[in-house]
């Protein structure tokens, strides 16, 4: 994947905050800033989608819900219908459509998340 350089100035307090968060996440400040830029721009492009940590990396999920985009796609793959998928979750159709729009835009990412969550040997407590 080709990459591009993005830069911008922020008040010093935010630089300190990002530095602290990068340390906590055991990553570099530049990697964390890159992640913030990517995820925030995607959240703006795909309203209703947010990102969270998962065992296989960051994953897209429905904001305010506990369901990952790949899980919505999995149900849709079974039902072949937005209406039936919405009925499964008892959600408005718009939520399902938003999840599917994201899944269509990033099929490899969603496939990777799905494989990571369903193929990984379970680590139970």
């Amino acid at each position, binding site marked *: 994947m080709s990459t591009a350089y993005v830069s911008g100035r922020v008040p010093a307090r935010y630089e300190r905050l990002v530095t602290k968060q990068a340390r906590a996440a055991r990553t570099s400040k530049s990697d964390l800033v890159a992640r913030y830029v990517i995820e925030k721009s995607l959240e703006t492009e795909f309203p209703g989608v947010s990102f969270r940590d998962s065992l296989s990396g960051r994953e897209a999920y429905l904001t305010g819900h506990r369901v990952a985009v790949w899980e919505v796609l999995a149900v849709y793959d079974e039902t072949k219908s937005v209406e039936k998928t919405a009925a499964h979750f008892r959600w408005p159709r718009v939520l399902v459509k938003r999840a599917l729009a994201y899944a269509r835009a990033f099929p490899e990412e969603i496939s990777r998340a799905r494989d990571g*969550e*369903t193929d*990984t040997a*379970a680590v139970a*407590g």
Partner: protein
Amino acid sequence: MTEKPTQPRLLADENTSHRFVSACRRLVQGFPVVHIARWQDGSWLGLDDAALLIACAESGLILVAFDRATLPWHAGQVIRAGERHGGLILFRRSVRSTNYGQQARLLTDFWTIEGHAWDWQNRVVYLPPSR
């Protein structure tokens, strides 16, 4: 006939369907399962895995969900952090998301025969069980 309210012991996570909960109740009247969207007015829907597991322990609830590798991993993290979780029942991926009848039979059979009597603290069980 009015169904007698039952104190829930099982909390169905959001990746399960309300139809699964209804199917459980059709099989076993008063089956003690509630969907997370109906529990506490849906206020637990916004909880992340670790917070949900701890909240379930505090309320004496066992979480029922489709297997997502991250969930049992978080259960392990909760224990390693010195907290406890209230137990997890996970449907294996061989169980289709929309096969509500199979899900309900697996859960009600397991719960009625053995699960109801167990100590669930920090326990993880997969359905169908591996025999």
